[in-house]
């Protein structure tokens, strides 16, 4: 006598999800129980009916997929968060540098040898040099003071004012030097830390402008077993030029296998990852032998306050490599 199975178990059997022993037990029961057999058939038919009506997998176009990706990336704030991390790190480095500079400036220094006395004799200069070599520089004795009677005087004690006799005697240069305020050692003017603004997309045009340009500088190199390399110098202002580089394997390898980071030229700050779209065929002739490969590179770069997407395409359809520059959005000024 078999236990009447749960409908859920019959469903598992119909869907092929019952384990070996359980499936065997259920099958044995179904052969003997007509109502369970009917139920199993109903469940199987229903599953098959839905399965057969499965629509083909819808796909976004490449442009739509790219649009969704950029929008998702912008909305998620991942890049902003990442930039803020970089930003904090940059500030930390700047702060440490400033602190180190301040320490250097405030560090006690050897007293400057003021030119308030006459040049020491040669022997004294040699002695001073020896002491400096021996590390005794800081213990340099005070320069000898001259006897007032002998015409020498100390610079630390101002001489008594001379009685006015109607004739003004100009002070000696050494006196003037001593009386003059001490000059601070010349320091390099403190430069503010370099500040890179975080990249924020503030506006996205409804209809991106696209400009296709022939690209005179695109180079493609190829060799069997070695990567295809496409390097592009996107036209623009010199300080905003981004260099893209992408590598792709040949021999029909369609997997996206090249990822490139475009950087802000001056600061080296990462703007965005460029990537290869693998489905653009590239026909390259190597030593007279034509080989199929794929190369499509795109990257976002900043040009002023405009976010520009640059795409470099090399394909067998177009003999001339070309670049498409698309305005994607406006960044924060």
């Amino acid at each position, binding site marked *: 006598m078999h236990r009447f199975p749960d409908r859920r178990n019959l469903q598992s059997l119909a869907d092929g999800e019952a384990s070996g022993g359980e499936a065997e037990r259920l099958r044995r029961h179904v052969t003997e129980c007509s109502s369970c057999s009917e139920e199993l058939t109903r469940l199987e038919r229903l*599953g098959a009916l839905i399965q057969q009506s499965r629509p083909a997998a819808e796909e976004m176009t490449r442009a739509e997929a790219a649009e969704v990706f950029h*929008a998702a990336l912008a909305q*998620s704030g991942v890049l902003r968060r990442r930039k803020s991390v970089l930003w904090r790190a940059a500030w930390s480095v700047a702060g440490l540098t400033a602190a180190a500079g301040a320490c250097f400036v405030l560090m006690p220094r050897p007293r400057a040898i003021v030119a308030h006395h006459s040049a020491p004799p040669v022997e004294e200069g040699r002695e001073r040099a020896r002491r400096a070599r021996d590390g005794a520089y800081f213990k340099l004795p005070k320069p000898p003071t001259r006897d007032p009677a002998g015409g020498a005087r100390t610079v630390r004690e101002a001489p008594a004012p001379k009685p006015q006799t109607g004739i003004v005697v100009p002070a000696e240069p050494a006196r003037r030097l001593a009386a003059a305020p001490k000059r601070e050692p010349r320091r390099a003017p403190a430069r503010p830390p370099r500040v890179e603004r975080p990249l924020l997309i503030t506006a996205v045009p409804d209809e991106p402008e696209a400009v296709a340009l022939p690209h005179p500088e695109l180079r493609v190199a190829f060799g069997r077993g070695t990567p295809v390399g496409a390097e592009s110098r996107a036209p623009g202002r010199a300080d905003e030029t981004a260099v893209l580089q992408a590598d792709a394997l040949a021999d029909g390898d369609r997997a996206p296998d090249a990822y*490139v980071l475009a950087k802000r*030229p001056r600061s080296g700050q990462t703007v965005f990852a460029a990537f290869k779209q693998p489905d653009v065929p590239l026909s390259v002739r190597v030593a007279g032998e034509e080989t199929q490969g794929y190369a499509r590179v795109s990257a976002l770069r900043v040009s002023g306050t405009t976010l520009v997407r640059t795409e470099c395409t090399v394909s067998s359809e177009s003999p001339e490599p070309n670049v498409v520059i698309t305005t994607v959005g406006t960044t924060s000024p």
Partner: protein
Amino acid sequence: METVLSLRVGARAECGGEETWLTAARAGEPWALERFYNSYQSQVYALCHRVLTRTEDAKDATQATFVRAFRELPRFRGESTAKTWIYRIAINEALSMLRKRRDVPLPTDEPLPSPATGPSIVEKLAVEDALNRTRPAHRTILVLRFWEELSYEEIAQVLGISLSAVKMRLLRARDDFRKCYQEAR
């Protein structure tokens, strides 16, 4: 002015498997996020389209899915596969969209099926109509099981419910569908 040569990470991306770029994606590396997106966008979009049946809705749901995925990737511990994890997000987004438009008529923009393939057009339309009439949760589990061909275990992970709950919900979904299908015919 010297231009900066972009960093070549292609080799790194090539030699590493999913684990490599997934780790980088968790850290917010743009190239890895893109790889993550390229790996799953077509599946996510197809799933959203099958649940929602409308292209614009599917696109919105896909975008919302990846927005959430990019945000939550750092917290993804790999307890389930990345596929079931992103499916779970996608299903939640699609379901919330489906619930919002519950009262709105559901014109699908799917092209009519070719008469040469599979069941008859009438039957196929009846199935689609019946699926559209079923409750969102039922439609979702039927899509996951019969169109996405996920196992019970995977469905449990995607929906975040137990295995026995999957069996029960699937059975109820089948009953619901059968009722709607008979009405549609």
